[in-house]
């Protein structure tokens, strides 16, 4: 059996593990666009911050590919011939496969912006090479302007703060983390970040650039030495789409991580999958989902049987001591009951629908939040449990004595 994996991130290495758990012998070929072994993408900001050493960012030990008996080709896939089951590479090579897994992740999205070509020091922030490049460009006197107050932009800001003179973040949206937080929650985070020394220009973005100056929409000008473009990402699905594979905003997969094309699987940030908290498919570009999806794909590719049927979106984000966690579906929904508890620097919101917890957002006291995540993932009936107590303390009480006997007491 010939296995080919396009991409070399966490989903890809989990896919390798999944294949090897069933088939120790079949040949595996990984097609890696980047020149690095699989690494933890989120660590690129911690690398800048100095919390992660360059040698510590890799997902696996150096001998992983070898010990998994897995070949790596450093090139980029450009097309799939689904009839002949082969992958065309940019270098013209064609790699045949019996089973293919697409773990291509996503790429930064940079919209056309006036004068951008006049900016010398401009970077996106998605790969470790981006972070090496930014590191080279900055000095302690640099003024950094980050376009985009989403997760990537803010993590970049955190990574750079202590290494440069100033960091300013702008975004057309009126609040930080606009895709995750509402105004109220965002305000808490923004205030905290401002206290930590990050400048913001929100509801306002660069209209055009002129060398080291950004002319803002409101007419003001911001001077900078380094520009980071963190406007979002797009799944890398072009060649799959061209091959006739079914896509929404990303590659559509089922619980076995199968795509619409026979013999082709997909996992990681480039897929959209059923969200049990939401009740429909969506992109859940998160590390645990990449790992779980990749592994599931691998097992099924090798003829085993596995399902990843409890995917939910979730996020754990922290900036200098302020943590926020979200999981499931927590946008205001008139069918959901919301239980809220607020403090000065903290907020907890739980969303309950049909006696089941479907989502939460916690800023501040995130202790034991995994219990809530588990309530969402297991879709446990919490009708017997006092919802107020739920918000006070995350405990195993709502799962009942039998659950505890099993999980804590080891009673099978």
């Amino acid at each position, binding site marked *: 059996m010939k296995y080919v994996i396009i991409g070399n991130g966490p989903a890809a290495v989990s896919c390798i593990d999944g294949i090897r758990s069933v088939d120790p012998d079949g040949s595996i070929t990984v097609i890696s666009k980047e020149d690095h072994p699989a690494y933890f993408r989120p660590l690129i900001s911690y690398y800048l911050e100095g919390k992660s050493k360059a040698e510590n960012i890799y997902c696996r030990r150096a001998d992983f590919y070898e010990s998994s008996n897995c070949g790596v080709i450093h090139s980029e896939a450009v097309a799939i011939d689904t009839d002949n089951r082969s992958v065309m590479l940019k270098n013209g090579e064609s790699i045949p496969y019996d089973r293919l897994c697409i773990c291509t992740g996503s790429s930064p999205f940079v919209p056309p912006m006036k004068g951008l070509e006049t900016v010398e020091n401009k970077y996106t922030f998605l790969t470790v090479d981006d972070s090496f490049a930014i590191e080279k460009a900055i000095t302690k006197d640099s003024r950094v302007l980050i376009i985009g107050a989403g997760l990537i932009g803010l993590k970049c800001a955190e990574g750079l703060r202590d290494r440069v003179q100033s960091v300013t973040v702008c975004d057309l949206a009126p609040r930080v983390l606009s895709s995750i937080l509402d105004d109220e929650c965002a305000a808490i985070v923004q205030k905290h970040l401002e206290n930590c020394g990050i400048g913001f220009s929100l509801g306002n973005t660069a209209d055009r650039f002129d060398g080291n100056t950004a002319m803002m929409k409101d007419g003001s000008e911001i001077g900078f030495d380094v520009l980071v473009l963190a406007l979002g990402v797009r799944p890398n699905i072009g060649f799959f789409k061209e091959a006739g594979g079914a896509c929404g905003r990303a590659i559509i997969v089922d619980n076995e991580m199968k795509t619409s094309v026979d013999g082709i699987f997909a996992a990681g940030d480039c897929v959209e999958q059923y969200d049990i908290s939401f009740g429909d498919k969506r992109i859940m570009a998160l590390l645990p989902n990449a790992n779980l999806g990749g592994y599931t794909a691998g097992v099924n590719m090798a003829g085993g049987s596995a399902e990843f049927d409890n995917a939910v979106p979730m996020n754990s984000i922290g900036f200098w001591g302020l943590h926020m*966690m979200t999981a499931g579906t927590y946008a205001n929904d008139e069918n959901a009951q919301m239980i809220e508890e607020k403090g000065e620097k903290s907020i907890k919101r739980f969303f309950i629908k049909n006696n089941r917890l479907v989502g939460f957002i916690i800023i501040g006291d995130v202790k*034991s939040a*995994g*219990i809530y995540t588990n309530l969402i993932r297991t879709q446990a009936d919490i009708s017997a449990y006092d919802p107020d107590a739920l918000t006070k303390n995350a405990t195993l009480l709502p799962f009942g004595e039998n659950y505890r006997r099993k999980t804590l007491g080891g009673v099978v």
Partner: protein
Amino acid sequence: MKRVTVHEEWCLGCHLCEYNCAFANSGLADMVKALKNQKITPRIHVEEDGRIHYAVSCRHCEDPICIKGCISGALQKGADGVVTIDHDKCVGCLSCMLLCPYGCITTDENETVLKCELCVKNGDIPACVQGCPNRAIVFEEVQT
């Protein structure tokens, strides 16, 4: 493999496990010196509701979801099945905390992520087990 199991029936809610854990992981030889005037951050905690009490600590799951979600590779499962944390790698993102279904990952006042490592660095028998006055917490073979 030997694991810490908790028998709710016998848990008295005395919280001694928390103190014994904090002491064992303090690296100090004297409990008074280690815990006096300290806010303790044990790796095991007692949950209670009226007459229900039970201690919870890392289950060292067969397929630990905390490891699946760890963005830095700091959480590892060893050949002995014990899930340990490498503080050199951990960046404190708390994804593990978001994922642990037992609420068993905690942090100290320095935001260092802490979890039960079965006292592999402290001795043969986990401190919570040794100190439990009613054998509610035991270290026993479990089927994995």
